[in-house]
């Protein structure tokens, strides 16, 4: 059974077909990159699957169960988590508290009013471990608003990861950071995600990054899936090259011009 399956998923904004009849199947343990030009519907697809937006029609099956009409919190509990393109953190909480909160939530402990959060040693240890995995141990007690952009992106991912989801959507985890930091961020994310065997869908523009890390690449164009396949298959797909780069040919993705 596939982990996630979308059936004729549709989301239109007026005339704009953001998600247009998408049928995508994701298997357990895959690392998938979702690529496509701006406005291709990648983020809308993430929004619909993570319940940030309701689909116009179609079905979302997660682990065999229909989750189409579940709320955000229900879908999080079911095991679907996501990070955001524009960093979405709890800015007046420390990096540690940001991660700890996700852990409290996962453990269904957030309703507890009569215990002190910072005395829960199991949660403390795990939050510190997660910060360590993402190289954020040094920022433990810094307010999220005071952390550099690249690290904020990582913290955003760490928050989603700390929920220990079965399926993790990462919407442009490297957007808005320097090319040098990009590789480092993706290395960190890929090693953590692969290490835990989490199924991940990453929206990404940088094709070097995409080819390097993905098991499978899904190309979206005008709301629909244009092509999908292994990095090699996509690299040699002329249609994809035309859509993404505006030119095709055997070395379209590697040519630097």
């Amino acid at each position, binding site marked *: 059974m596939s982990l996630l399956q979308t059936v004729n998923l549709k989301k239109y904004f007026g005339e704009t077909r953001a998600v247009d009849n998408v049928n995508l199947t994701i298997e357990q343990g895959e690392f998938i990159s979702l690529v496509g030009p701006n406005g291709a519907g990648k983020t809308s697809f993430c929004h619909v699957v*993570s319940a*940030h937006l309701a689909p116009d029609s179609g079905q979302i099956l997660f682990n065999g169960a229909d989750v189409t009409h579940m709320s*955000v*919190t229900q879908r*999080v*509990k079911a095991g679907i*988590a*996501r990070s*955001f393109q524009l960093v*979405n*953190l*709890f*800015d*007046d*909480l*420390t990096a*540690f*508290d*940001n991660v*700890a*909160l*996700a852990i*409290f*939530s*996962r453990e269904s*402990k*957030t*309703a*507890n*009013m*009569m*215990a*002190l*959060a*910072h*005395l*829960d040693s199991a949660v*403390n240890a795990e939050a*510190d471990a997660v910060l*360590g995995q993402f190289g954020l*141990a040094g920022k*433990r*007690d810094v307010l999220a608003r005071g952390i550099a952009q690249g690290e904020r992106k990582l913290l955003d991912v760490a*928050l*989603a990861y700390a*929920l220990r989801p079965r399926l993790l959507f990462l919407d442009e985890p490297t957007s808005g950071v320097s090319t040098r930091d990009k590789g480092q961020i993706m290395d960190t994310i890929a090693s953590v995600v692969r290490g835990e065997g989490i199924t991940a869908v990453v929206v990404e523009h940088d094709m070097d990054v995409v080819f390097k890390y993905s098991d499978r690449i899904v190309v979206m164009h005008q709301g629909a899936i244009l092509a999908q396949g292994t990095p090699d298959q996509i690299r040699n797909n002329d249609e994809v090259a035309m859509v993404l780069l505006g030119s095709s040919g055997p070395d379209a993705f590697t040519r630097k011009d």
Partner: protein
Amino acid sequence: MTMAPNRTGPSIPRLFGVAVVVLIVLAILPYVVDVYQTQLLTYGMVFAIAALGFNLLLGYTGLLSFGHSAYFGTGAYTVAFIVRDLGAHSMELCILGGLLGTFVVAALFGYVCVRHTRIFFGILTLALSQVLWSLAFKFFWVTGGTDGIRVASANLTLLGGLVDFKGRGAFQRFVFAYYYYVLVLFAVSVVVMWMIVHSPFGKALQAIRDNEVRAGFVGIPVRRYRWIAFVISGLFTGLAGILWVPLNGLTTPDILYWPFSGEIVFMAVLGGFRNFTGPIVGALAFNYLKTYAVASSEYWQLLLGLVLVVLVLVLPTGIVGSTARLYARLFRRA
């Protein structure tokens, strides 16, 4: 990982030390100051409980209520009804009844209000509180209208009838005993609220305050938690209203009217709503400010207005926030 102390959490022994010192000072004060000052400080502590409750919404959940007079007033009027109509004397019974009444009103109003945020939330809380005010104002055969309802301290007993206030020197004995009664409940309120804001639930509220969308995406049921915070907030402010009645001896629709909600907001802003102790300090300071402003000038509202303007322009983090910053600056230079 180094085994450094958990810097995220507050140091409990240190806080405990400070709390004990403050409590001892407060416990000695009635022996040092006169009856009037004792009474004034009791009012201050009562308002501090109200502001503490209010700030669970503003400071920790990010919701500005402009209708907390509703819960203060509900607490107060419930006590008045219990004493007048049920003939009860026990203050503890009044507290239980008052909290029950506040719970019902806060749960009902909160259910409606937390469907909205920002200014819409504020306006809704304001509107609902004014419904209660107009009821108290118009249904004079029940509420006494503008005359209000008298609750004489002589009719009340503390600690299940152990302490009563009849006979000679009853008023002085009441002021003295009631000060300690309020002090204990104030201390309990502070501890309970401190626990709540430092609990996982409190952290979840702060997450909702900072970013409600992301709070949902880490699995927090945002609206339900806002509702719970609203009810707790109302209960604290309701307790303040309950304790205020015997002190004041009378409850009138004034405490349900919107300017009183504004005063509660003023208290939190004056002390600093970003700090736990801000509303407490703010409530005590506001109480003295208003008392002496009223005594010294008939234009006391002008004086309070000036204070508010200065506060917003010069000390946006309030007394506690500004003091903390000043302290940090001096400390670092040393």
